[in-house]
């Protein structure tokens, strides 16, 4: 494991960003970050376009895990029986759930979810139907995102104040935000093991909080796991393991399982509106589902290529998704009527979108991987309706992962291949200009997405390595 921090001119920027380290935390609770699947961390005390230019994105640590990691989820600061911890949770294809203290890069606990099914476990998977645990783990995600804190935290120069005593001047931060209150009681980490059981694990220990319950057929390709309002949702696709393609839910209070089967159409992903309406894209259509019954409330024909994403613009929510021809659609949240159709010109589309709001101008941005680039669209209002205006297009990024946004900085992974290693890029969210890349720091390629929390971006590679890039709070 390597730990690096505060190199070259970075210290000055960090001082300007100040020791203020503690803007209210927004957690990465499931794949896509939140229930709306915005893939966005709205504020970060240390990552900003300025600090990234000044070198804040350092390789911090890497850990070798057993099995290929899925994108980690990040809990708030916790008071555990072993002290205050900043924990992330990552599931791996080996049916392991690993808790890592991301501030120090050490494993806190590791739990192996024992296979418990009459079905024979799949030992060797395929690219379409991989073996083992396939879904990223989830924390309980609120339907509505928390109110945003101060705009783009961490900007601004230090001020001069005079300390008492010897009269010496001390450069000091202009403000020091309050450290978020730590969570005192352990919540749950939700994981679907390869045998199809849903596990609710103690965040502090990895032990089952309640007995695991039968959820989905074993050996299925499960993904888009998310826990909302004491119900866990997931989808299955590609008919893997004989499991039907479907959207699934299990009510944790009584383990009642509901489903919406999609026939031959694979389900691509899920997202929630803040009223609880659940959206699922498939290779055939997009559907609005009732949160409890999974009954269809509205539909729009596809086929789609990306998971849906819900975004807010001028106090109204909309649904966005992309299709296999590179089109990006904006839809009415209730009827799924098409409001925006950005032509795609036949280019390929990534697997998920991202969205963020520039806090000063309130400009809403939609990000999509189209072809070999990330494209930034600005949401604008024209003639009483919305439209997406292409504002920038990034440099070429081979096999780009779904983008994520951290405090206005876009991160995207060139996933690499058997013959080339992955590279993480940081782009200016307003211009798409490259701010930084990880160079040769990552060895190996990635088949999953990236996530962020605690001023770090996490990348998992096929060989079971989890990398952290970003800012590390100095211990010394």
């Amino acid at each position, binding site marked *: 494991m390597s730990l690096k921090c505060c190199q070259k001119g970075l210290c000055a920027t960090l001082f300007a960003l100040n*020791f203020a*380290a*503690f803007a209210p935390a927004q957690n990465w609770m499931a794949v896509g970050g939140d229930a709306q699947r915005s893939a966005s961390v709205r504020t970060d005390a240390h990552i900003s376009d300025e600090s990234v230019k000044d070198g804040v994105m350092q390789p911090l640590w890497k850990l070798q895990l057993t099995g290929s990691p899925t994108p980690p989820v990040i809990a708030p*600061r*916790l*008071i*555990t*029986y*072993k*002290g*205050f911890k*900043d924990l992330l949770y990552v599931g791996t294809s080996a049916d392991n759930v690993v808790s890592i203290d991301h*501030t*120090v890069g050490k494993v806190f606990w590791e739990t192996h979810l024992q296979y418990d099914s009459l079905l024979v476990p799949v030992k060797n998977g395929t690219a379409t139907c991989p073996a083992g645990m396939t879904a990223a783990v989830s924390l309980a995600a609120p339907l509505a995102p928390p109110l945003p804190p101060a705009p783009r935290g961490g900007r601004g120069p230090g*001020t001069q*104040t005079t*300390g*008492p*005593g*010897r009269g*010496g001047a*001390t450069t*000091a*931060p*202009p*403000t*020091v935000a*309050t*450290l978020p209150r730590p*969570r*005192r*009681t*352990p919540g749950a980490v939700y994981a679907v093991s390869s045998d199809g059981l849903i596990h609710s694990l*103690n965040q*502090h*220990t990895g*032990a089952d909080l309640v007995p695991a319950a039968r959820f989905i057929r074993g050996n299925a390709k499960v993904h888009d796991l998310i826990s909302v309002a004491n119900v866990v949702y997931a989808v299955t696709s590609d008919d893997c393991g004989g499991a039907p393609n479907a959207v699934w839910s299990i009510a944790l209070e009584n383990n009642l399982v509901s489903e919406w089967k999609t026939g031959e159409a694979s389900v691509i992903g899920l997202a929630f509106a803040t009223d609880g309406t659940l959206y699922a894209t498939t290779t055939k259509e997009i559907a609005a589902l009732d949160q409890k019954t999974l009954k269809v409330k509205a539909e729009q024909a596809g086929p789609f290529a990306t998971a849906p994403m819900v975004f807010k613009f001028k106090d109204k929510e909309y649904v966005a998704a992309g299709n296999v021809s590179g089109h990006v659609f904006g839809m009415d949240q209730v009827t799924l009527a098409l409001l925006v159709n950005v032509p795609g010109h036949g280019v390929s589309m990534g697997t998920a979108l991202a969205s963020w709001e520039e806090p000063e101008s309130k400009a809403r941005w939609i990000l999509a991987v189209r072809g070999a680039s990330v494209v930034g669209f600005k949401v604008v209002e024209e003639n009483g309706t919305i439209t997406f205006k292409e504002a920038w297009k990034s440099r070429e990024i081979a096999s780009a992962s779904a983008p994520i946004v951290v405090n206005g900085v876009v991160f995207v992974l060139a996933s690499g291949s058997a013959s080339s290693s992955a590279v993480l890029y940081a782009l200016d969210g307003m211009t798409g200009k490259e701010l930084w890349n990880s160079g040769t720091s990552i060895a190996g390629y990635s088949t999953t997405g990236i996530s962020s929390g605690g001023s770090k971006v996490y990348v998992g590679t096929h060989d079971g390595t989890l990398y952290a890039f970003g800012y590390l*709070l*100095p*211990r*010394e």
Partner: protein
Amino acid sequence: MRKSLFVIALSCAFLQAADWLTDGGGPQRTSWQKDEHILNKDNVKNLQIVWKIQLDNKPIEMHSLFPPLIVDKVNTAAGPKQIAIVAGVSDNIYAIDVLTAKIIWQKHFEYPEPKRRGRATDPLCPAGLTATPIIGPPNAAGNRTVYALAGDGEIHSLNVADGEDVAVPFQFGYPYGKSYALNMWNDVLFTTTAQGCAGNPNQMWSVDLKDPKHKVMTYSPKSGGLWGREGAAIDESGVAWAPTGDGRYDPATQTYGNGLVGAKVEGNELKLQDYYIPKNWAWLQSRDLDMQVTPAIFKYKGKELMIAASKECRIYLLDTKAAGGDDHQTPLDRTPLICNEEVNFASAGIWGAMASWEDSKGTRWILSPFWGPSHPDFKVPISNGPVTHGAIVAFKLEEKNGSYKLIPAWMSRDMDQAEPPVIANGVIYAFGSGENTEQAYPDRGLDDNSPERIHDSTHAVFYALDAQTGKELYSSGDQIKSFVHFGGLSIANGRVYLGTYDSILYCFGLGPK
């Protein structure tokens, strides 16, 4: 019985006039008894429980008895006596004749039940008296006064000889505000408060005993609490130094959390004079590893220095005239991590108070207790066995060309939650409290509650160690039956005292041999 009395009387005949008038042995909180001439490293192997006395003090939460104060040659109605003054959390003060182990007088402070108090079962905020009292200098007639801060926040001034009030009580602190050990400098009393108990602000407090209005002067570093076990330590210029506990550092708003502040009475105000904040304060705050140990202040080669520490488990050496240098963040020296590799906020790290002494060769020694296992990367020349529950660690202070260095010297045997030691005549006296210090649990997270901790506590063990090597010279084994929380050692005239949760005061001294 006759033999015992003979031994006690014999011991008495050799007693010198040593006192222990305040927590930590003096305003500088070094915990060094310079006037001990009876106990030494050759005879402490013969230590035994000379007496123990069951007091009628009722424990509250985990608190019970505070460190005894010892004063010799007190002119009582029955003649001159050596007296131990012991405070109990349920607002009791006991004066005990150390020769006979008889109570000479006792006082219970009565007051209307305060409207606010800490949460029931919360170990952090017990109701009642929580500050170790202090004994003032003798007056012209040779009489001494013990100052005690009752649970209702009133200062009582009692004649050490008979317990009678020598002054009208006056208000100093908040009721049930959890004040820490009293200290005194030029007739000014100091205390500190923490944890915001019963709505009490976390700050340093002072009052001039000569002021007829008894104006209460305070200074707040706006932090989580000044919870050094022995309150503030006072330097030669009258600056009271106290750790500030958990909190932020933001000089723009005069916020000095996770550091050490020094305040002094100027006119009728208590004003900040200086402060020290570790450069990694943000890390300390993020993991609740705060600076919370009463510092020890001492002279070394003509300079007045100070040692402080944190739950992170490292020791800082500071100059009282410029703590932390020009930027307030650069100590003269800082040790590596001594313990707490796990980064635990509850049962590891340095807790309580520091200690320091100088041997006959002029070597300045620094002592610190710590909890939990020693850090695997921390090495000492002399180890006294593996440490898993806590220990005392000793450093030598060296100076070369104006550069100061804390050199690791030895680490003691394992002690179950080692508490602040005291030093006398080449012997270190220490104890493992046997207290359960857990505040969080795997199934529940944070759930700091007295009943569970009391149930899971064991018993204290008292040790005497060779001050040069840390070698164990004496252990009380399982003779002490209960644990210690916020208690502490006192030593004077061949006796070492320790009060336990069950309100028993133990007196260790030499046996028949």
